[in-house]
């Protein structure tokens, strides 16, 4: 199995032979920052392209196919354009809050993105409270959305932000509870440990029924947290024109746009890490030949393949379902998902204590 550990450790050793410890660390930090930001932007462009193609596929259309081969450079063109658009100064808004909101959303998203283990060693920070960190940082985005709605001085954004607040705070609960069941199963919050544990059976197989229930709940709640259809109430296009980011133009709007797509990926990546074995190849105990073959596929590919399957699921739902109404949305969370999650935790406790 080839791990990125080899590369990262080589860079580390290389730097330390020529530089003092402090400087080496500093250069590593800069490198990691550049890599994370680049990966973030490139991944966002790929995701936008994928979404447009998949959406076209669901709607019997062709999708972008003129800009570059099969239209692959379409989102690049969009980014160039959006970088050069005017940033409109809007009358009677709070300019500091207005700008801060866009940055908060994208910073929350980048911080979460940095903590995802793409491979052994390809992991910016490996906290011993990784799951806790993911939950904490990803929910910072809601502050940005609330600020955006409030600072825009517009009724549509206001309604959108209030909806978003209600929605994200509710769904954060089942999201967290679903992840907690997995933490119970693995006994650790450290992401690398959780992934290593799944080398012979992914959590979704190891954890049995409670893990499957948690996986489904996590997909639903996570999808709701990304503000994408059918949970796109905060920006409900046909009701609130563009929801909380109605008044944003140019790259400030671009931040919201990028963060939306990356959040979708982040949710899929967390689902992959905690439920589907992260970068671990598919191993079946006893089938050594099969396991050997699977090991030849690089773990990074495994990670992205699993994540993109989850992303595809999200797109499938988004382009099939109509939007929920606000009361349906809250009923779904508080009357269905929450009780099930709570029960599921007890079920998982039983599973961990008596069955495994």
């Amino acid at each position: 199995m080839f791990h990125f550990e080899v590369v990262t450790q080589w860079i580390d050793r290389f730097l330390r032979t020529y530089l003092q410890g402090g400087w080496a660390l500093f250069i590593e930090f800069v490198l990691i920052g550049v890599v994370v930001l680049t990966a973030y932007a490139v991944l966002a462009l790929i995701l936008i392209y994928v979404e447009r193609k998949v959406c076209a596929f669901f709607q019997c259309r062709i999708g972008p196919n003129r800009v570059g081969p099969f239209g692959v450079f379409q989102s690049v063109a969009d980014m160039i354009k959006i970088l050069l658009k005017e940033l409109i100064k809007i009358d009677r808004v709070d300019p500091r809050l207005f700008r801060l909101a866009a940055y908060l959303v994208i910073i929350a998203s980048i911080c979460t993105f940095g903590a995802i283990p793409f491979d052994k060693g390809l992991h910016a920070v490996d906290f011993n409270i990784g799951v806790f960190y993911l939950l904490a940082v990803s929910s910072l985005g809601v502050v940005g959305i609330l600020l955006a709605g409030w600072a825009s001085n517009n009724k549509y954004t206001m309604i959108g932000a209030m909806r978003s607040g209600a929605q994200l705070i509710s769904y954060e609960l089942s999201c967290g509870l679903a992840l907690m069941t997995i933490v119970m199963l693995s006994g650790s919050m450290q992401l690398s440990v959780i992934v290593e544990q799944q080398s012979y059976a992914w959590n979704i197989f190891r954890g049995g029924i409670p893990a499957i229930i948690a996986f489904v709940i996590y997909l639903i709640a996570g999808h709701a947290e990304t503000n994408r259809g059918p949970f796109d109430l905060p920006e409900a296009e046909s009701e609130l024109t563009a929801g909380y980011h109605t008044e944003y133009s140019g790259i400030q709007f671009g931040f919201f746009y990028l963060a939306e797509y990356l959040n979708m990926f982040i949710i899929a990546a967390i689902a992959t890490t905690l439920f589907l074995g992260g970068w671990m190849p598919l191993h079946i105990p006893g089938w050594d030949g099969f396991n050997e073959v699977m090991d030849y596929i690089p773990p990074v590919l495994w990670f992205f393949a699993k994540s993109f399957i989850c992303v595809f699921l999200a797109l499938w739902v988004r382009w099939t379902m109509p939007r929920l109404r606000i009361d349906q949305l809250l009923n779904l969370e508080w009357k269905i998902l929450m009780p099930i999650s709570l029960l599921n935790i007890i079920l998982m406790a039983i599973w961990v204590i008596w069955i495994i």
Partner: protein
Amino acid sequence: MEVKNISIKNMKYEDFKENEYLEEYVKELKANGVNIAIAKLDDLINWGRSNSVWPLTFATSCCGIEFMCLGAARYDFARFGWEVTRNSPRQADVIFCCGTIVHKMAPVLKRLYDQMAEPKYVMAFGSCAISGGPFKSSYHTVMGVDQIIPVDVYIPGCPPRPDAMIYGMMQLSRKIKMQEFFKLPKQPHPIENNEPVETGHALSLPTETTKGGDQ
């Protein structure tokens, strides 16, 4: 079926093939040489801008239905990357004037145009938006949107077919490619009497009444 020898007075058959006058004009202008760095950067920027034209969903009447057809499966303007229709004028690049503009709507349209971020473009779609069309003799119709806002491309028809619309949008792309981004005028409004419409009234994007921020 091949079109053969259309003869229109004062117009040669070859003229129908392609109207490259814009490109030739620019070539002529650049014949004396330009700064290569800026020219290349300009090319890249214009490639991006011309391939990503996001329309505002704005339609007043019949032409709007053909605009919807353009977005649907048969004509699919997503092929050119135009399917990201934005509902908020702040995020749109081009406004399609689909349909008649009447006196009561005129300030609304002008305000929508003012709300869009530069660089912005306008397409007059259909004969009503071009000149008043079938409603030219009416007391309440504006005789063409170019009386209120500057227009980049006119697409005739009542309503124009979606194919015509695709052609029109490609003309707009060409026009964008010809521009020099670093020399774009700050306020390209060729019309006098261009005070922005008063804000805070009863229109689609209320900006006044929520008490936010520093009030």
